[in-house]
């Protein structure tokens, strides 16, 4: 172990984390590396995880890329991020959560109360895990079922231990370590995240949810998710949590890579609601091969700044990509979100549907790219982005980029920016709804095209959450 870094506890034994104590295992060791980033920190992380040499080398190479690349000058304002003021590796214990409870901002506690989250779970939420303490039985049953089908569903750390070859074959192949500054950062210090491998022809008929993947690993701020669907496989992964996730550290930078092989169907649903101090800078990208279907459903609430543009690279004929996203920006928040569709083969198709809401001085931006390479004839793409502003202080911008190097294509784009219309309000109020009820109804209707794609419990929670946020803003 390098001399400069001294984690304050001994190395935990991952294998030892039995379910005997479930989440309440107070014996789990807490680790918190000092603030700041350098090769020693990266080496220590790799040591703590007992990683193979190739992963350590990849991390160190990525660190160099991270250091070399300038900060992005487009999108949101990331100038205030102090990379020296961040803990790059934290492994929580229950004690930490208990201790930190008093530090949690009042508004977050209130939201938990309004959402009716039990006391025990509230504290679990602080660790960034959608805490579902009662789900162990369910979890075991699901796990048995999945195992019978040969599905691998583990934390990425665990997968690296148990299925090194599978991880090595696919890791960083969709998002290379030098893709962008924040992907490089993630590759250098990643921890946690989900690893899913679905064998050829296997259809997983229930959504896999992150909270079923019980482990004591922090979801963390640099989680790394990798999903591989072999030919003809189907899987729906659901991640996130609608209750605000409080994080004392201010940077969340995840990487999600997905590979949908021939005829596979992958759907990735995420709802994130970070506390208002967090920079949420995420790289998400999928490759879809012949006849494969890849769908990103992406909900962004909370955070100080989110920059997130889920991408689908359509690699072979017949591949279809879809992004449905909804963003909500309140006071002091900037949601810079969108999508990227890259048509690299003929007869591929894509749909982007983006809905954003700005209230109380919040700012939303749609930033999207549709790229069609020369020779990718017969491609179809349809982009629709709608922004709704709830008052005059809020702001919304649209940056739709189109790079079309092929003539024989069918590309459609439609964008609207509107305010909650006086006519709509008057109509609903003339039926007895108060102004606040009417506004909420209009907003709920506006996001309905996305909401209806969500699993039921998320749809209900998201609706409720949007209403709660609006309560704060419009009283």
């Amino acid at each position, binding site marked *: 172990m390098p001399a400069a870094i001294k984690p304050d506890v001994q190395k935990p034994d991952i294998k030892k984390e039995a379910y005997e104590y479930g989440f309440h295992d107070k014996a789990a060791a807490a680790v918190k590396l000092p603030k700041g980033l350098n090769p020693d920190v990266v080496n220590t992380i790799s040591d703590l995880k007992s990683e193979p040499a190739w992963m350590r080398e990849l991390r160190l190479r990525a660190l160099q890329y991270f250091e070399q690349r300038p900060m992005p000058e487009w999108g949101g304002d990331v100038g205030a991020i102090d990379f020296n003021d961040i803990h790059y590796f934290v492994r929580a214990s229950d004690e930490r959560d208990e201790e930190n409870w008093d530090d949690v901002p009042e508004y977050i506690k209130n939201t938990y109360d309004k959402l009716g989250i039990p006391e025990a779970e509230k504290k679990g939420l602080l660790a960034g895990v959608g805490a579902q303490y009662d789900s162990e039985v369910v979890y075991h049953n699901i796990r048995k079922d999945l195992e019978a089908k040969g599905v691998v569903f583990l934390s990425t750390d665990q997968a690296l231990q148990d299925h090194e070859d599978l991880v090595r074959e696919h890791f960083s192949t969709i998002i290379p370590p030098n893709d962008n500054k924040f992907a490089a950062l993630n590759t250098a210090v990643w921890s946690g995240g989900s690893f899913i491998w679905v064998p050829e022809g296997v259809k997983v008929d229930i959504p896999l949810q992150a909270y079923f993947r019980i482990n004591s690993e922090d979801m963390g701020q640099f989680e790394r998710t990798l999903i591989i669907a072999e030919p003809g496989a189907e899987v729906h992964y659901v991640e996130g949590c609608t209750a605000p996730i409080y994080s004392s550290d201010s940077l969340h930078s995840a990487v999600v890579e997905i590979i949908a092989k021939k005829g596979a169907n992958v759907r990735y649903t995420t709802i994130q609601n970070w506390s208002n101090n967090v920079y949420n800078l995420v790289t998400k990208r999928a490759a879809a091969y012949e006849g494969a279907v890849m769908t990103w459903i992406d909900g962004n609430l909370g955070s100080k700044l989110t920059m997130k543009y889920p991408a689908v690279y359509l690699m072979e004929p017949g591949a279809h990509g879809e992004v449905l996203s909804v963003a909500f920006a309140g006071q002091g928040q900037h949601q810079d979100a969108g999508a990227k569709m890259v048509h690299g083969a003929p007869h591929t198709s894509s749909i982007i549907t983006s809905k954003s809401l700005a209230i109380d001085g919040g700012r939303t931006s749609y930033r999207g790219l549709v790229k069609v390479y020369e020779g990718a004839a017969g491609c179809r793409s349809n982009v629709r982005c709608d922004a709704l502003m709830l008052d005059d202080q809020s702001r919304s911008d649209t940056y739709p980029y189109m790079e079309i190097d092929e003539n024989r294509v069918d590309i459609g784009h439609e964008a609207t920016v509107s305010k909650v*219309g*006086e*006519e*709509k309000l*008057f*109509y*609903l*109020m*003339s*039926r*007895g*709804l*108060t*102004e606040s*009820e*009417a506004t909420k*109804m*209009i907003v*709920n*209707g*506006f*996001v*309905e*095209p996305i909401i209806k794609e969500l699993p039921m419990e998320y749809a209900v929670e998201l609706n409720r959450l949007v209403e709660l946020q609006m309560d704060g803003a419009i009283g």
Partner: protein
Amino acid sequence: MPEPLLAIEDLHIAVEDKPIVRGLSLLIHAGEVHAIMGPNGSGKSTLANALMGHPRYTITSGSVRYKGEEVIHWPPDERARAGMFLAFQYPTDVPGVSMINFLRRAASARRGSEIPVREFRQQLGAVLEQLHIDEQFVRRYVNDGFSGGEKKRAEILQLGLLQPELAIMDETDSGLDIDALRIVAQGINATRRDSNATLLITHYQRMLNYVTPDFVHVLAAGRIVVSGDATLAHRLEAEGYDPILSEATEGAPA
């Protein structure tokens, strides 16, 4: 004579500082159906919207008393909960909000408490049946992609469900074919009670073939220039607005 349900007195309404309604007075009692007719630009829709409290229409002077209370400073929702209703000439769409959800919220607001699901379904079912509206209709988003006729039916459906005491019908007949018109008229007739009143605002008298008004008023340049019974509407139909308007103006002081 009992207290009028609606008492409009010397009402002046402006839109963006431009006076549109200029000194209109009208008394409506429970059990009555009044028709206000007038050429385009006479102020009919302005009156309808202002009575319901549309923020773009400014009441510059005069008074509107509903059940004895001055309502010109009430927001639209308060008027609605007190029993006033406006059937819109051009109902707006609310995409993503299902009719059934909207109707339930409106019915709950009107009643002053959350209406139980079962009771609501019964009420809604009865109104749908009466208006020959298919149940699938209420699964659709509010007015979203509705044809002109469907929008008007949706307004009548709300009228039937909410049972207002004062219904203001703003050109509900315009843009309807004869069958749709008959169904809409039937809906209006079905809600007629001794305890409520209807103010029909219309350009043409053909609606009045199906809904017989007790009083007909002709509106021109923001004032009621002549009032009469149902026969006035027939005269308008036969002769057009011009002779009646010039008679009225000749009789009036310069």
